[in-house]
Structures are given as structure tokens and as C-alpha cells.
């Protein structure tokens, strides 16, 4: 049998009496969005390569409810949340990693009030830990050496949860030149998709928020705009396209950058 990537589900693991070290919460964008599926794959490749014991919920996963809660529909949010918590608690999940800051924030901060208590980490922090522990070793002088990368802070990582450094440390490990936008870290400008804006047209105004942000990112002269959130990914990619720069500026997730520089 050939050695292919493994994506075990919790159901399979539980049937074999096993329990993984960490549950990878894929999220709706990671499962369904064509662009973000590539991020899910990149992260799974890294997990396989490093030999992390992980599992996913597969079809047992459902939306965390984040957009419903932020759009004001508390009933729908709690229906989603309570059902998810039943599944997670049923499998006695202790630790969760996710590549979506919205899932991360909701499960980490909002599920405890509904009976879901887990150690939740975002994949940027997880990747930083793997690098620090020497489990992911990036050879200097790789693909990104000398290239300019700018990092767009996700609001739900940054201001919402004070995670500013982990994604930047991951990027620094690539040996690239990290250039900051004028509005970064605590002052980072939203991509325009948070608070359920992803799912509706913006209100009338003079500009779309993602265009404003894409202009700022392009002004750094970076070849790559690094993101760590599926919604930021969509918004920044659309913004770059709107400026007709998609041929020379790539919007990529941290996991993709690591996987790429590892040749995965």
C-alpha cells in the first residue's frame, strides 16, 4: 500500500478505541470554499508530515454559528453551538486546532458559556509552536528568501484575541522580508467581511472596505499578502483582482506558505 496522506475522522478513531492529540476543526470555508480547501489541504499535509496525531469530524461538523450570532440570530447560533458541543463532548475532545479565526474565537470564547470547554488554538499559533519545537524546519534561502511579504491581521485573531505575533513569527521563519502595512496589529484595518458581512452586500458608501485594504497592502510593494482567515482570503483576493494585480501579487494563507516552502 502506498503511503498517502491520512485524514482520519473522529468516528473512525473512536471505533478503534483511539483518541487523537488534537481535533482539526475544518470549518465551513475550509470544507466548501474552493480557494480555502487548498489551505485545509496544506495544513493536513503539514500535520501528516510532522506526524501530529489528529482527526477531523468530517460530516459530523457543523457551522459554529458565528455569522448567525453576529447577525443577531442568537437562537440559530445557540442551536448550532449546543449541537456542536454535544458532538465534541461526546468524543471527549480536549484540544482543537482550526484555520479559521471566527471558528477559533467562537469555540474558544463563546462555547464555554454553553458547556463546551476546550483548549482551542488557531493554526497560526500551532504552526509557530511546530517551528519553535523544531518539528517544522524551514531551510533558509528557500523560495521566499528576499521576497516581500505583508501580513494582513484578521480582526478575530488580533483585536479580538490579541494574537499578533504568532503569524508574524511564522512568516519570519520563511526568511522573507516582512513589510508592515500602515495600519497593522492593533490598528489593522478589517478586510470588510467580519460581523457576518461576508454574507451580504455592503451598505452604500464611497468604496468597498476590501478595496481600501487591498490598496494599502499593494502599497507595501509586497509580492505576497499573507492571511490567516478564510474571509480575509476571499476579501483580499477580490481586492487584488479588482486592482488587476492578481498576476503578480498572491494572497496566501500561512499554512500554504509553510507547505510550499517545505515542498509539500
Amino acid at each position, binding site marked *: 500500500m502506498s503511503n498517502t496522506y491520512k485524514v482520519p475522522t473522529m468516528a473512525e478513531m473512536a471505533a478503534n478505541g483511539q483518541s487523537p492529540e488534537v481535533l482539526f476543526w475544518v470549518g465551513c470555508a475550509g470544507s466548501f470554499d474552493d480557494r480555502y480547501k487548498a489551505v485545509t489541504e496544506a495544513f493536513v499535509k503539514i500535520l501528516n508530515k510532522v506526524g501530529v496525531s489528529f482527526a477531523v469530524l468530517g460530516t459530523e461538523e457543523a457551522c459554529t454559528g458565528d455569522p448567525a450570532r453576529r447577525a443577531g440570530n442568537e437562537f*440559530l447560533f445557540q442551536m448550532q453551538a449546543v449541537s456542536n458541543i*454535544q458532538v465534541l463532548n461526546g468524543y471527549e475532545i480536549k484540544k482543537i486546532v482550526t484555520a479559521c479565526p471566527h471558528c477559533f474565537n467562537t469555540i*474558544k470564547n463563546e462555547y464555554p458559556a454553553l458547556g463546551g470547554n476546550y483548549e482551542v488554538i488557531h493554526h497560526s499559533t500551532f504552526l509557530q509552536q511546530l517551528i519553535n519545537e523544531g518539528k517544522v524546519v524551514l531551510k533558509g534561502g528557500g523560495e521566499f528568501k528576499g521576497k516581500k511579504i505583508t501580513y494582513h491581521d484578521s480582526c478575530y485573531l488580533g483585536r479580538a484575541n490579541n494574537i499578533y505575533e504568532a503569524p508574524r513569527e511564522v512568516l519570519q521563519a520563511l526568511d522573507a522580508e516582512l513589510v508592515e502595512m500602515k495600519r497593522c496589529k492593533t490598528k489593522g484595518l*478589517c478586510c470588510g467581511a467580519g460581523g457576518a458581512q461576508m454574507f451580504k*452586500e455592503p451598505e452604500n458608501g464611497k468604496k468597498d472596505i476590501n478595496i481600501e485594504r487591498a490598496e494599502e497592502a499593494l502599497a507595501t510593494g509586497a509580492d505576497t499578502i499573507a492571511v490567516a482567515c478564510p474571509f480575509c482570503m476571499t476579501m483580499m483576493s477580490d481586492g487584488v483582482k479588482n486592482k488587476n494585480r492578481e498576476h503578480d501579487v498572491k494572497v496566501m494563507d500561512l499554512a500554504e506558505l509553510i507547505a510550499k516552502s517545505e515542498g509539500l
Partner: protein
Amino acid sequence: MSLLPQIAFLAVFAVAGFLLSKRIGHLRRSIMLGKSVERNDQPSERWKTMLLVAFGQQKMFKRLIPAFLHLLIYVGFLVINLEVLEFVIDGVFGTHRIFAPLLGDFYTVAMNIFEFLAFAVLFSCVAFLIRRNVMKVERFTKPEMKGWPALDANLILVIEIILMFAILTMNATDQILAARGDEHYIQLGSLFFSSMLMPLFEGMSNGTLVFIERFAWWFHIVGILAFAVYVTYSKHLHIFLAFPNTWYSNLKPKGEIQNMPEVTNEVNMMLGIQTDAAANPPAEIGRFGAKDVNDLSWINIMNAFSCTECGRCTAECPANITGKKLSPRKIMMDTRDRAEEVAKSIASGGPGLEDGKSLLGDYITKEEINACTSCNACVEACPVNIDPLAIILQMRRYVSMEESAAPAQWNSMFQNMETSFSPWKFAPSDRFNWAEKIKQEEIK
């Protein structure tokens, strides 16, 4: 010596005290229109936050020039109020510069410090007037600042300038009189800033000088008392409310939205989950979310009264920056205006909340709250930890759950989530399809 000035002084104090206590009562009732919530956990963290953010002005220093100018006014306010203590004692007992003989040379040093601060306050206020009216800094010229808010801001600066001039004028005339040997006045060491004003008064007779000196003294003390009353009508309330407001800061991660336990009971019942709470449902479930000020918490309303309309929130708001109607500052100003309107109406036997108006609809529109990305830039920017986002989200809850009037695209998203457990319309059974390809791929 006549007792008249002392009686007048006490009368002025009594009137100011009476007016102030009435106004404080009104403010208290306005804030207490909000629902009661407990936020007394982690007291040591709360004291620390108050010391750093309010007392230490920590968040002001995100913008250095206004932070420095504001610091001068703030320190001036704190320190010059020490001098007011002497004013009060002199006023009550008919003395003059009662601390001068007690403190000796140090009194001159203290006076020079006060004068320096008076000058610094003056300088800062002039700089702020220029920023507002000549440079027209963008955040001071947004639509919600038209009319009273702009006048209020300018009035505060002008009043402070006049009060500081009164101190310097008083000291200048006082020292000319002392130098001329008027026995009521005490010769101090040289006072740096007021001595520069002396040439203006040198040619005047003793009688005129005494009149100017007394006028400046009275003007300053009455001015301060009048200003204290004025502050209760003004955005300037932040000088007091910044302290409780920061003490009652939200210490949880900013991304966390407050849970609604009244919903949890129903959800558990719908899902057939037995809990203690479900066995004892609350007697009465009020309105879901917020339509009016009484649906908000008292902390939300205190936030509104603590707002000094600096507009740093609005300047950082991605919706506002890109031309949408939402302005977090306006959310706070509207909340305060509505709370005052309702409290005033109740106090005069009016209809109060039942006046046919509400915060959402008559003050804040759905277009505004729908434009929010919940990015927390406004919360992060506020120098006194005001949380406009909390109010916006409670209003969205009202619109979504009580009116079922969320934007159509959100309603579609809700439907997708109800039927396929994802905000997008995909079959739940396809959720794991992403893994098919990678499971065939060889590990490199």
C-alpha cells in the same frame, strides 16, 4: 472688615452645590434606565485598568501630539485644583493666600508650578481650538458633530482659556499691589508667567488694581463652579466618568459576544437536553436584544455619558472610512441623547419610554448597525474603553429576533445554516469531500 464677601462666597457655593446635586441625580437616573448587570469580578485587574487607562492616559498615547497637549490640560486640571483649596479657605474665612506664610519660599515655587500649568493649559487649549477650527481635523468635522457638539467643544476650550487668564491676571495684579506695599497683599518671590502680564497693569491706580484682582479671584472661583455645572450638560463629563468607566471595562476577550442565557433554556428544551435551568425557566423573558435604552445595560449607558466625542473610534471604523453611515461615536451620542430625553420626560411626569420614539429607529438606523464588521477597531481606539460594538450587536439581536427584519441576504444565510448547517447552501453530506483528493496523494 465686612462679612459680605464671605456670605456671598458661601451663597455661591450653596447654589452651585444645589445645582450640581440636581444634575448628578438626573445623570444617575439616566444611566440607571439601563438593565442592572454585575461587573465586579477581578477587582485588582479593574483597579489596574483604571489606573493605567484613565489616570495614566495610556491609550491617549496612540496619537502623540494630542496626547501631549491633553496631558498638559489633564495635569493642569488635577494640580490647579489644589490651588482651589486655598481659594475655598480664603473665601470662607476672609483670609488672603492663607498658605503663603505657612509654606514660606515653597509657596512661591508652588505658585510658579501652578502658573506654568496655567500657561500650559492655555497653550494646549489654543492648539486644540486651532485643530478644530482652522486645521479642521477630519474626525472633528463629521456630520454628527454639527451644531451643539461643535459648540460644546469650543465652549469648553474657551472657558478654560478664560479661567487660566483669570489666574494669571490675579497673580499679576496681586504682586503689583504687594510691591506697592498694600498691606493686604503678600510679597512673594518672582512669578515667571504672571510677571509678563504686569506691564499691562503697572499704570493703574491701587483701587483699580484691587478691583481687577478681586474680580479675577471671584471670576476664577465662580467660573470653576459654573464650569462644574456646565460639565454635567456637556461631553466634558469624561473628566469624572472616565474613572468608573474604565473600572467597569470589559475584561474578556473583545471577540466574545455576551451570551443570552434566556435563549439557552429554550434551545436546550428544543434539543431535548435536560438541564437544571430548563426545569426552572425564568418567570418572564423580556425583549430579545435592544430597541431602546432600557434594553441596554447601565454600563452601556454609562459608556455613552463618558464619551467626549473625540471620534477616534469613528476615524478607525472601516465602515465609516469607506463612506458608510455608521459612526461608532454617533451610536454613543445617540444613546446618551435618548437616555437624557427619557429621564427628563420621566422626571417631569411625561411618558418616558412610551413617547412613541425609540433609540433604534428614531436615533440609530438599521443602515448604520448593519454596516458594522464587528472588527473592534472602535473599542480598541477608545481612550476610555467605551464599547460601541456591544450596543450595535444588541440592536441587531432585536432586529433579527423580534422583528425578523434582518437584511434579506442574512435571512438566506440563516436558512442555509438551519437546513444544511453551513452559511452556504451545500449538502451537509458533502462536507468531507475535500479530503478525497488528498487521501489519494502520496506523501512527499
